[in-house]
């Protein structure tokens, strides 16, 4: 409840038209947003023996498996980068994205109790859900630093701003797709069933275990329609500065992300009216 609404008249009426995102209201509820993120982060590893170590184990073990199967056995090319660090650099943004997306999708149903008992801008829920995996990403990045030291790869000046930008972009994509799926999941629980499957397919449709250069050049634009293609290639390029920057990929991918982000927000606002009645 914002200070500015203290004495302003509030009108409750049947919703009409498209509605707007309500940025002002989102801002007024920023503290609640912060508390929800904080709750997700602090509850995450409660009552587990390994605790925060899980944030390291997941990407590390996945990286080892990928290195054995795709690096050693399948011998996939990596644009000249050692396979372990190549796949780890792809896994970091990927795991952040996929965890955020899964959490966002299930968030509205998980917070059913809040939705039916209290008013707040509903967009806060999927957005807050996407932020807790950011802590995992930061923790897992420490392993990346060790690997860079081991393989003697020095980060470039561009890394300093390009890496955070890529993470932001992965987040924007997760929020965009996540708002769509979370709103749909309120009505159709199939979406919740679909999501592990979707994430699995999406992993292999993104350049995590192989480089984007493996895709034939006349299909590159099509490949770039997957926003994670641009995110992951951009993340790698920011680290290794190998070859030319992936301009086309980035341009197409960013545009697709932006479309998801805007339409996701609008779709969510459109559906949110009956959330409390249906969820």
């Amino acid at each position, binding site marked *: 409840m914002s200070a500015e609404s203290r004495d302003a008249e509030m*009108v*409750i009426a*049947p919703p009409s038209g498209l509605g707007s995102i309500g940025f002002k209201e989102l801002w007024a509820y920023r503290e609640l947003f912060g*508390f929800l993120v904080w709750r997700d982060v602090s509850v995450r590893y409660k009552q587990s023996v390994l605790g925060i170590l899980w944030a390291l184990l997941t990407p590390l073990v996945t990286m080892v498996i990928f290195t054995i199967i795709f690096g050693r056995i399948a011998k996939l090319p990596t644009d000249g980068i050692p396979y372990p660090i190549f796949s780890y650099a792809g896994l970091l943004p990927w795991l952040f994205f996929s965890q955020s997306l899964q959490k966002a999708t299930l968030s509205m149903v998980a917070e059913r109790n809040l939705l039916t*008992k*209290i008013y*707040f801008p509903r967009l806060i829920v999927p957005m807050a859900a996407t932020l807790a995996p950011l802590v995992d990403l930061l923790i897992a990045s420490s392993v990346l630093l060790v690997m860079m030291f081991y393989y003697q790869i020095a980060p470039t000046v561009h890394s300093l701003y390009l890496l955070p930008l890529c993470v932001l972009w992965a987040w924007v994509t997760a929020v965009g797709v996540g708002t769509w799926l979370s709103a749909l999941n309120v009505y159709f629980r199939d979406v919740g069933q679909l999501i592990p499957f979707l994430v699995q397919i999406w992993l292999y449709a993104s350049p995590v275990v192989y480089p984007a250069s493996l895709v034939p050049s006349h299909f590159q634009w099509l490949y770039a329609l997957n926003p994670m293609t641009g995110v992951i290639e951009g993340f790698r390029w920011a680290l290794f500065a190998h070859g030319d920057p992936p301009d086309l990929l980035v341009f197409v991918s960013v545009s697709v992300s932006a479309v998801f982000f805007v339409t996701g927000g609008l779709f969510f606002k459109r559906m949110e009216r009956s959330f409390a009645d249906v969820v």
Partner: protein
Amino acid sequence: MIHVEGIGKRYRLGKSIRHDTLRDAIMHRARFGRRRQNPIDRQAEEHFWALKDISFDVTEGEAVGIIGRNGSGKSTLLKILSRITPPTEGVIRLRGRVASLLEVGTGFHPELSGRENIYLNGAILGMRCQEINAKFDEIIAFAEIDKFLDTPVKRYSSGMYVRLAFAVAAHLEPQILLVDEVLAVGDAEFQKKCLGKIGEVAKSGRTVLFVSHNMAAVQSLTSRAVLLSDGHLVEWGRTENVVSTYLQRASEYVSTRRMKSNDPEFSVSRFEFDADAFKPGFNAPFRFDISFELDRDFHSINIVIEIINSIGSRLITSRGAINLIPGGKSHLSLQISDHHLPPGDYSVTLAIGRNRRMLVYEENVLLFEVSSEGVSEPLLMPQIEARDRLGAFIPMKVST
């Protein structure tokens, strides 16, 4: 302060229309694609109005009660006022910072400590961080949990949990407070404390809308009340008058609503007072009629009736058993005699179980009044009214 004008809320009805899976939605579209587009058809078949044409005004600093049977639309009205769900028609204008308490402990996380949950719950209820800081000591003093402040709330007893939850809510400082029957929880002493707090809020010049089944609480806390029945506003005015209308309405003595059952094969279609027993006089036996619709035979059924007084204390628990209720439609008659209840207003809770499994549990299924007819006057001390007495009302035999 709060201006409610022509509020209506329409819900979709029935399982056949709500598509819980994508397949259902697609199938439905495919089968009824065209017909669904016909607006008249759709409204007639698939919708019902939970609220219709509700209008009233609440002035600043006033405490207003909202009463009515289960399913009369009280909670829906409160949900619309708290902006949880939008109205289908009509408009509400209000001024001031609103806080709604539809339950205590919304958003409590079992893994977090008491301290952490105070902050989380405070934020959810709309308190600012600095506001919570300022009131933190007061909150833990009110909840009496200071020793367990850093224990996860999942280890709390249910009493501690409720106390903490209410303590946070009690320290909200809204200009308009919307309260649902949060008082139905906790022990009698705590309920009293909660009522006291709500009374304080009401007296401090803030606007309170209070939804309750507890007529005594509504009467002591509010000056005006709204009576809802089947989504319509029946009466709006001074609390005393509205409460007496509520208690007098004969329809309140019959519960025709199909009750929720945990077993799809078992259902109670009707539960009512025996026609002759609308207003049982002092110590007149209660007779209830109950009708079942069962898909198969049910064996060894226990029926429990609880009689609860107007401040929520269970005064009587009466249990009966029957060996067999045959499948199909059937009918039983239940009687409780020698209850010795003092005159007053009561509500009935119905519970039906089989072995250790609860089939039906419904609170406030019936409301009734025990009149003071038949009370032998010499039993009463003149300055205390019969209604103010709790517990059994038993005549004494005096001999030498």
